[in-house]
């Protein structure tokens, strides 16, 4: 009986004694700012720094903001508000909330728990990579700035020479990657150590649940903004920054005709706000019931999007700087070749009159020019060569070009680490809170032990990502575990709350908590637009996934990057099956 499970808000209100007094052992936030900061830290993660600029870049720059804002308004904010409200009202973690709404929906809660667990496994591995780069940033010169010498010191190591020093450091020195996913290799001891340190740090911060994360979040949520500002100032003063900004933000409106843009905008908003993890429900369940969750939701969602935009400015300026430097190098090399060949005085050809000279010489001495095998230098080409390898390859390459590179590298990797750590808090909270409610352990076992067990189990499970093929596994997990299940869970969240819990009851709850009835925008979004949008995105996503063979990019020691196709590996998503089974059971 739904009403028997939830004290009716009218009944509780008439007594004017909130039910919280009965459960005074439920922890609460020290202050509102801590709660807001935790939600912001959870939502703002590594994806804001590298995924959003990447999407902006490939989807026509400024034009991408249009589908992004539309998705934010009609999908992101309503779902965000819904999760915060339901958690605050029912004051339970994800499993408790969904069991309360209907036992048939308990699977949604367990699905959230599983997704939080799986995502925290590979997310912390990324942090382990960041940690590895961080502790290597204290050397002079940076280890990824130059190729190491080969055995007899006559040249550089061939693998490094064929590609770049940065690539070599990432694929060989950090990952020691194998050539395909079936070739597992051994555990890489340096990555195991870094992973252990990362899980230890996560344990320290989440040891007592929100009591400890609430204190840690002050540092981990605010520090990235400080560093982003520093990088913003530095980035804008670098040469070539304006070219980068102009190039990446120039809107190309034609791109909006491509349906993939809309799909990617919807999914980006969705994953960026960390919906359907259960972490937001857990966070808001520690609030006092009379808290304005509507204002919180709108504030946090907008802060998240603003952070994405704010982060993309230094990223694009630094990418522009890197592209310009590469372009200048290319030009310089060509100029030397021409000067040497034609024995011209040294300053006759400069970068700005290179094209004139080249054109002139090409018409007068075409054979000589052809024999030089000059590489055609195109700034566009250099600007295009960035992508998801942003942090570890592109940015590290840009950092070695900046003066004082050790300091910038340290700052950058600490920023990435704290961005990821604050998201990890939300993930761990999404695991810890439901487990505490499931009463899997007796009350006498302290919370420290439970969080320790969670961290230990996660560490041991995540050791598979420290194998030589670990990054391939991580890519698979990221593509298949961190995407589809979230869409399914969110769809069921919306329909569950709106149609099973009842939109009228929910609106009354929100009115009781915030003091005003949710207006027309919320009603329409919750009832119609968001579920419809979720369903469309889900169908489109599945359609697109099934059209291509599952694949992953592999690093071939023969220096050619070729995709290797996964056949019948993870053909169906494990978590989806699991939650379906649970729902059927109930």
């Amino acid at each position, binding site marked *: *009986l*739904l*009403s*028997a*499970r939830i*004290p*009716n808000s*009218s*009944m509780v209100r008439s*007594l004017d*004694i909130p*039910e919280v*007094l*009965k459960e005074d052992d439920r922890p609460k936030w020290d202050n509102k700012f801590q709660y807001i900061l935790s939600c912001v830290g959870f939502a703002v993660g590594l994806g804001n720094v590298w995924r959003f600029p990447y999407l902006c870049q490939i989807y026509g720059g400024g034009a991408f903001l249009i589908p992004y804002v539309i998705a934010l308004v009609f999908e992101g904010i309503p779902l965000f508000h819904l999760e915060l409200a339901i958690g605050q009202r029912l004051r339970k973690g994800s499993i408790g909330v969904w*069991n*309360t709404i*209907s*036992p048939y929906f308990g699977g949604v809660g367990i699905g959230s728990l599983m997704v939080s667990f799986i995502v925290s496994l590979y997310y912390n591995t990324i942090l382990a990579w960041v*940690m590895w780069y*961080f*502790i*290597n940033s*204290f*050397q002079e*010169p940076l280890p990824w700035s*130059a190729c*190491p*010498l080969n055995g007899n*010191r*006559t*040249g*550089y190591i061939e693998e490094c020479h064929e590609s770049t020093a940065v690539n070599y450091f990432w694929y060989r020195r950090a990952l020691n990657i194998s050539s395909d996913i079936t070739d597992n290799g051994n555990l890489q001891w340096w990555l195991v*150590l870094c992973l252990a*340190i990362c899980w*230890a*740090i996560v*344990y*320290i911060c989440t*040891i*007592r649940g929100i009591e*400890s994360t609430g204190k840690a979040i002050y540092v981990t949520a605010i520090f990235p903004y400080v560093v982003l500002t520093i990088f913003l100032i530095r980035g804008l003063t670098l040469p070539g920054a304006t070219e980068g900004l102009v190039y990446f933000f120039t809107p190309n409106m034609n791109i909006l005709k491509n349906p993939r843009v809309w799909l990617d905008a919807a999914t980006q908003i969705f994953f960026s706000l960390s919906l359907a993890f259960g972490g937001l429900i857990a966070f808001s369940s520690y609030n006092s019931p009379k808290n304005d969750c509507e204002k919180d939701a709108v504030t946090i969602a907008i802060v998240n999007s603003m952070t994405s935009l704010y982060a993309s400015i230094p990223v694009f300026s630094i990418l522009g700087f890197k592209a310009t430097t590469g372009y200048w190098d290319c030009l*310089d*090399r060509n*100029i*030397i*070749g021409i*000067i*040497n060949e034609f*024995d011209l*005085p*040294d*300053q006759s050809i*400069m*970068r700005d009159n290179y094209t004139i000279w080249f054109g002139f010489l090409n018409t007068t001495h075409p054979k000589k020019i052809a024999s030089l095998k000059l590489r055609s230098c195109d700034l566009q080409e250099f600007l295009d060569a960035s992508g998801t390898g942003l942090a570890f390859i592109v940015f590290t390459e840009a950092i070695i070009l900046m003066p004082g590179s050790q300091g910038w590298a340290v700052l950058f990797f600490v920023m990435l680490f704290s961005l990821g750590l604050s998201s990890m808090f939300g993930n761990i909270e999404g695991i810890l809170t439901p487990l505490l409610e499931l009463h899997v352990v007796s009350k006498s076992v*302290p919370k*420290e032990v439970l969080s320790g067990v969670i961290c230990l189990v996660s560490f041991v499970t995540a050791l598979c990502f420290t194998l030589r093929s670990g990054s391939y596994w991580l890519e698979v997990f990221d593509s298949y575990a961190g995407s589809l299940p979230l869409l399914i869970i969110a769809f069921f969240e919306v329909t569950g709350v709106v149609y099973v819990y*009842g939109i009228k009851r929910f609106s*009354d709850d929100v009115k009781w908590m915030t003091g005003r009835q949710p207006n027309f925008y919320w009603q329409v979004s919750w009832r119609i637009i968001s579920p419809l949008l979720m369903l469309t995105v889900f169908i489109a996503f599945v359609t697109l996934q099934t059209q291509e063979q599952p694949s992953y990019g592999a690093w071939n020691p023969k220096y050619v990057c070729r995709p290797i196709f996964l056949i019948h590996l993870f053909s169906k998503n494990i978590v989806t099956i699991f939650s379906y089974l649970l729902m059927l059971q109930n």
Partner: protein
Amino acid sequence: LKGPLNRFLYSTSTNGVELFQGQCSMQPPSLPVLVLELLIFYLSLQYAWDASEEYLFKAMVAFAMRRYSNKETTQISNVLLCNMTERVSFWFVVTDSARNVTTVPGSEVEAAIRMNRNRINSAFLLTDNTLQFLKISSTLSPPIEPTVPVWVIVFGVVLCLVVAAILFLVVSGIRQRKKNNNESAETGDLEDKCDTPVTTENGIPCDILDLKAGQINGVYAADDERFTPL
């Protein structure tokens, strides 16, 4: 004069250089002679290249030959430069006055210069990159490796901090728990006598009415009519 730094290796065909009346000139070789071509990146020079610099170069090559062969027979006049270009590249030959004005084999000159490369570089305030002897590939200097890799030190520091933090938190948690247990044992009797606000539902105190019992196996029925609507 300043300008872009040249980093390009200039390779050219090796026309032989022949001694002709004590001067080197561009003639097809009658003797197989290895000629070393020297390329100085003009703009790396912090000084102008003139005849005195050429003299210094000859002196350095002579010095290198002397050091290598341990004979003090090579004179500055034995080193001949020719085919000067404005980019400061030229060819040079080392002759051996003891052996009837023939040239010293290129391999010897190569070895001598390789041995004393540092000194020659520093005499001209240049580096291996900016003062290039074509045909002499320099062995790349190994990077300076400290005895303990830096990352191990940093890792050790981080590890110590983390372990210390964990120990501190765990110990303080245990102590807190002990204190709480002691306090609750002392004040346990007092609490029972205090008035705690009793929440009631429909006139029944909540302590008696176990709300949770109704959650399990409840038949779902949205039955709102039992409660007075607003």
